[in-house]
């Protein structure tokens, strides 16, 4: 049985002028770690807020643990945990007071459900008397997660929990999520970091209120339609400029140490012709090889031409 279902959900703002979520349908299975991957403004937060019963959809239906998000909103509120993208705890209450408050609101106590948060809470317990507003970013994030977990929710909604967080803390956070998943909690998480996508069971790539692709990260990567190549030289910025004016290419863009590119047509001569072209342009120390697409490559492919021509 699916723990979360969305059927043709649409959400608009400004009396219909702004389309935030556009006829979206998908479901999340019990115990699944599901990622909504997309940039700011894609519609992720609207989806979270509808599923946590904080916003009403314009059209369509959605359920969480079998309950309807409109009719059964009170039941849903008791069984989901929600960590909004913006830090939403009480800044002038201490760590312990915040946790106590959320436990009480949900009719439980820290003591009763301590086992649920122990792993995470232990890391911030030395600061339990500190006001939440005075915590560092990483500690705020851990406290917010504790507050979302204290009533033992069946489903956890985490809206961009790692935005602005450094790579080491991000890794720790995802290890915490993995342990929560092992306890059987269904988790829906959103992120704009493409590298985090591979840590999910399934992902939905979202942009402009529409799901562009939805599958396991492995399948999404496999579905990349063209051969993808990686190239580098001693002058990367000039290399990108040279590649952009070469009309055999379908696309090319910086991808960390390399530039990724694919060709318009699959011809056996593509690679040697391009190498020759670049040598004539004066490029040196060329490394040119076929590579495997990442989730980011797939996202860029789905976005269309990433080459600055969309303006």
């Amino acid at each position: 049985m699916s723990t979360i279902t969305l059927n043709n959900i649409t959400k608009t703002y400004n009396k219909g002028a702004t389309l935030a979520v556009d006829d979206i349908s998908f479901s999340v299975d019990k115990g699944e770690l599901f990622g909504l991957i997309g940039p700011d403004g894609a519609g992720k937060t609207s989806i979270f807020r509808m599923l946590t019963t904080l916003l009403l959809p314009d059209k369509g239906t959605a359920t969480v643990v079998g309950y309807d998000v409109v009719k059964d909103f009170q039941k849903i509120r008791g069984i989901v945990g929600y960590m909004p993208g913006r830090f939403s705890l009480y800044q002038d209450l201490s760590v312990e007071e915040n946790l106590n408050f959320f436990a009480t609101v949900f009719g439980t106590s820290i003591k009763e459900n301590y086992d649920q948060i122990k792993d995470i809470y232990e890391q911030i317990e030395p600061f339990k008397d500190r006001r939440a507003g005075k915590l560092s970013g990483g500690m705020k994030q851990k406290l917010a997660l504790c507050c979302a977990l204290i009533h033992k929710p069946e489903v956890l909604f985490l809206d961009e929990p790692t935005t602005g967080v450094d790579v080491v803390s991000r890794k720790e956070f995802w290890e915490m999520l993995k342990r929560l998943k092992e306890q059987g909690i269904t988790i829906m998480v959103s992120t704009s970091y493409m590298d985090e996508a591979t840590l999910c069971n399934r992902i939905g790539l979202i942009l402009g209120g529409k799901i562009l692709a939805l599958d396991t990260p492995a399948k999404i990567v496999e579905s990349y339609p063209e051969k993808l190549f990686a190239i580098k030289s001693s002058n990367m910025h000039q290399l990108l400029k040279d590649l952009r004016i070469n009309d055999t290419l379908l696309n090319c863009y910086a991808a960390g140490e390399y530039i990724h590119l694919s060709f318009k047509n699959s011809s056996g001569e593509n690679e040697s012709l391009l190498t020759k072209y670049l040598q004539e342009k004066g490029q040196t120390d060329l490394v040119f090889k076929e590579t495997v697409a990442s989730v980011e490559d797939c996202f860029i492919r789905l976005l269309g031409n990433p080459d600055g021509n969309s303006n």
Partner: protein
Amino acid sequence: METVIKTKDLTKRFGDFVAVDKISFEVKKGEIFGFLGANGAGKTTAMRMLCGLSRPTSGEATVAGIDVYHNPEDIKKNIGYMSQKFSLYEDLTVLENIKFYAGIYGLSDNDIKEKSNELVEKLGLQEQANKLVQSLPLGWRQKLSFSVAIVHQPKVVFLDEPTGGVDPSMRKQFWDMIYDASEKGITIFVTTHYLDEAEYCDRICIMVDGRIEALDTPALLKKNFGVDNITEVFYQLARKAKRSGD
């Protein structure tokens, strides 16, 4: 090549806490200098000192040839600054924001007019020019914000996590703008949590617990640490960190 930023043993203490601990480095004209570190490593404090917003406890620093102790106000005129958190006024229009910043930076009325039109056209924002900034998608806001931060052609621009939350395609367009600015001789001082972006910098410096633990080109850092990506270099250094926080 002209040195645009120079620090020697630059230090900032808050009580007993040493936020920035004797950092020394130089950045050249037109260089893209990546300033990396975990949350709480001291990046923001260091940046604030270089922008003339926070007085160092000890050590030396000059930015665009100006001493941070003696002439912090002059520094502000010679630099640009943008961050993810604060950039544009959301309840002003695109054009109003450009005019406002250009005015603050002391451009003449004629220059402001010329620059406004030029920027709007370059960014392809003709249709949005008279719309409120809050109606623009984040990626566009950040591109506009960067353009505004360099509207007075500063010697150096400080970018504090300029691409957080921005989609990968827009991030790449943003980096194109950084490259263009660098080619025009503007020095770029940038922080980011996206380590693929570290690869786009000429040199990167990694801070751990207030100190600079590594400073080199991305290629040499990887070589010296015996790893094939910057993320791994970052892990090796940041794991040694004793303090955590913002």
